[in-house]
């Protein structure tokens, strides 16, 4: 027994030494990275690496018709990710404003750092921050949303939302945490922030909103099962969340057997019962969309983009901001490499900050290699096409399982 313990201990020590050494090397390399000269559009990934996590920066170039994506640099977080989790959870995020100075990414695999803060101007690691000792995110990741004064982090292991105050130099200060669990036992699987309203989906069919006007989230007491969940006999689960620029509509992408969107009128500051819109699937054939766990409004809010996580494609629908109605749309064919070598579609973001966004970037999660897919958006307001670019797919070489990406400069809401 003693020999066995000794061997295990030595192995553990050696492994941690190697890991630490490698992490330091990686950090040194990142610290030497020069900042881009101008302000190009950057695609930023939380690599969610289980050994040495990092943020990777890619420059988005080319034209709308022939977009390109080129790796620029990486920044080690000196912590570990978990290489997976919920599709709709934003693991990398920033203030939705062109003046954003910092990007925050989660490290769900370590206890000594939950959130890494990186300067958008230098790409240098600005700090590593933790919530309380009981905030645990290693089940399905840690989601992040950002306001001018606070960063909110949803932990999927402990079912808590932690509040961090934003300080100068991208620094964060942990304030406190609150419980956040779904009506059916789920944890936060998607979240979005608009002003003082934080909206979450629990991945178990239920949704809830929180008032953050006092800094820390306080439930609005509107936790409810979504209409899709109820009417589908418990097989549609709101997951990804987005909120319109005016704060009137909360839009949920459903984990489902089809492509479903649910919309809630939140103009009262509370969630109202959602209205279910089936974009594709049985009876409504737009395309072979399966699952719509991640969701993203176009900058002009005329379109909703959804990652068909289990179908390997991306779907789009048209959105009417006046009525909250979702209609029609289009679905891409399965993207190159679906099921060989990558397996799930993660988050979807637009390149441009105006119009329909021009180009879509898609996280392509693989157990043995992840990629970033690139699609061109074409829309005349009533019909659309999503076409995979010839530049797609770009390897996300440092990722252990890519689910979350962001774009800088960000969409303005």
């Amino acid at each position, binding site marked *: 027994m003693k020999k066995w313990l000794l061997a295990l201990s030595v192995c*553990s020590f050696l492994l941690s030494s190697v890991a630490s050494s490698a992490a330091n090397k990686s950090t040194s390399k990142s610290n030497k990275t020069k900042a881009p000269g101008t302000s190009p559009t950057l695609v930023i990934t939380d690599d969610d690496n289980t050994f040495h996590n990092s943020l990777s920066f890619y420059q988005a170039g080319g034209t709308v018709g022939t977009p390109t994506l080129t790796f620029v640099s990486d920044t080690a977080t000196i912590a570990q990710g978990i290489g997976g989790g*919920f599709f709709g959870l934003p693991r990398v995020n920033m203030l939705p404003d062109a003046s954003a100075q910092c990007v925050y990414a989660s490290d769900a695999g370590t206890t000594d750092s939950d959130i890494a803060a990186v300067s958008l101007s230098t790409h240098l690691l600005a700090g590593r921050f933790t919530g309380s000792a009981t905030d645990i995110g290693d089940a399905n990741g840690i989601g992040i949303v950002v306001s001018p004064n606070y960063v909110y982090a949803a932990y999927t292991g402990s079912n808590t939302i932690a509040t961090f105050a934003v300080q100068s130099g991208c620094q964060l200060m942990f304030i406190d945490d609150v419980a956040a669990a779904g009506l059916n036992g789920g944890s936060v699987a998607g979240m979005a922030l608009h002003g003082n309203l934080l909206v979450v989906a629990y991945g178990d069919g239920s949704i809830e909103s929180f008032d953050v006007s006092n800094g820390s989230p306080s439930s609005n007491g509107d936790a409810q099962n979504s209409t899709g969940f109820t009417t589908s006999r418990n097989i549609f689960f709101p997951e990804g969340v987005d909120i319109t620029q005016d704060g009137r509509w909360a839009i949920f992408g459903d984990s*489902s*057997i089809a492509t479903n969107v649910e919309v809630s009128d939140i103009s009262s500051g509370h969630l109202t019962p959602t209205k279910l819109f089936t974009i594709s699937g049985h009876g409504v054939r737009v395309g072979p969309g399966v699952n719509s766990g991640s969701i993203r409004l176009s900058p002009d809010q005329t379109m909703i983009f959804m990652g068909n996580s289990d179908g390997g494609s991306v779907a789009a629908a048209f959105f009417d901001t006046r009525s909250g109605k979702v209609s029609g749309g289009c679905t891409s064919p*399965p993207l190159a490499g679906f*099921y060989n070598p990558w397996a799930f579609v993660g988050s979807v973001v637009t390149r441009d900050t105006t119009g329909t966004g021009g180009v879509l970037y898609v996280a392509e999660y693989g157990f043995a290699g992840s990629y970033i897919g690139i699609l061109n958006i074409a829309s005349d307001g009533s019909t659309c096409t999503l076409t995979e670019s010839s530049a797609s797919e770009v390897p996300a070489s440092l990722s252990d399982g890519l689910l979350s990406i962001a774009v800088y400069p960000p969409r303005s809401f």
Partner: protein
Amino acid sequence: MRAMFRAFVFAVLLTQLAVLAYAGDQPRCPDRPLPGDPVNNPLDLYSQNGTLSVDLLLQNALDVNGFMHYCYIYMYQGQQIEAPTLRVNPGDTLNVNLTNNLQAPYDQPGAKKKQPMHVHMTMSNSPADDCMGNEVLPSSTNIHFHGLNVPPVCHQDDVINTVIESGDPAFHYSIQIPANEPPGLYWIHPHAHGNTTTQVNGGASAALIVEGSNPLTQGLNERVLIIREQDKMGPARDPDANVQLTINFQPAIFPEGGLPPMITVQPGARESWRLLNATSKQFLALQLTYGFTLQDFEVLAIDGVQLTQPIFTNTLYVPPAGRVEFIIPGLPAGQTGTFSTLGYNTGPVGDANNPDELAKLTTSGAPLKTQAEAKHTVTPPRQPLRFSGLAGLTPTTTRRLYFSEQNVGTNGGTQFYITTYPAAPRLFHMDDPPMIVTNTGAVEDWTIENHSGEVHAFHIHQIHFLVMAINGVQVPNPDLQDTIIVPPWSGTGPYSSVTLRMDFRDPNIVGTFVFHCHILDHEDGGMMAKIQVNPSN
């Protein structure tokens, strides 16, 4: 650093002590073999005068290594014997009195496992009648007589309404083995919806052999080998990394290292092996190597049914719940052999099925000078009357079904479905009406598609089926099986599929029973449906 080392050792010791203390308060399961022990056959229980009556106790206990055992215990000469082999003849009566002594905890403490999204189990009082389809509690169990073509009714082979609670009086099963039941290897295991994975992975399974003479195996030493799977205790973010295969309860050696299970054979002697894959999710790709030379298995039977002609192959693919019966060639004196599984590609979103060395073969005793080489001279057994002529029949109905999955993330939270076209997938509940209704006398062709990037294992209770086509390609010599691999979909092109000829001609199977994926957490998660077979008018 020395302080860190001491702290680490102390923490490990504390953990071990906690496990020991914890286990000390629990019921015990019989000790299982140690690494390096010889692989022994389970105890054989034979029927006498047309009847085999067995009292089994099912209980659970943590071992010192943190594995939760679920054990079928048989008392033999004052000793607890785990998972004996039940041996009956066609036409016999098999009586099993099962006492459920399962106690909390029902799974490894602290373990996180990839779970289906909605397996609802709540505590309530034990029901008075175990045939009423009561709610399945964490301690509930029952028995499925896997592969037997017997009635789906309570006290026989019913898993829908039979729910045996812990502490209930012994539940009596009485199975009349059909006189035309194909002689071969079957098995028993728990099938309480939602609990199957945990109990089977804990070891609750046993071989059931319907005896019958086969000239190909006469005079050969017979081994009964059961490959099981156990989930380890501890941090298990990646459940695939915490799975250990065992052979007759003895841990396989890779990737753990250590002493291998040992199989000692007489030099040069061929042996008859009956192998059961009792794992919950491991697809085996079996190989046998002598020295550096890959050997051929002479395959005699699959899923209890003898093949029309033996098949010679050096790699045997066995899905979870599958059985194969085969002859291994003689191992020359002084040589060693390796019995292993190569691992299996379960698809882009499938659970890892890693390679594993299952056992080492060595020789002992005097070399066998002569042994009848029956394989080229003896006429193989005929196809049993029970399924005779099935391949030549015109199906009365064709159906199309599909497996599909839906995820909220990469780490589970998965919905598992089996659906008939053109319906949309829906979550399975035990109180659902039958998805399919048919009559005795029907012969149906079912095409089972896989719409997911993960392999599945289709199984139907009560009957066997003929495998007519795989991915649309006709199978030249269809074999009877009760469990079959449905390959993962590649993401583009037609869905992967198997086409099966279902034989509902036997009036013995009137009633309602289930078909499902035999990856057990898929089954527990809802990849299951009911079929009702009505009597023909």
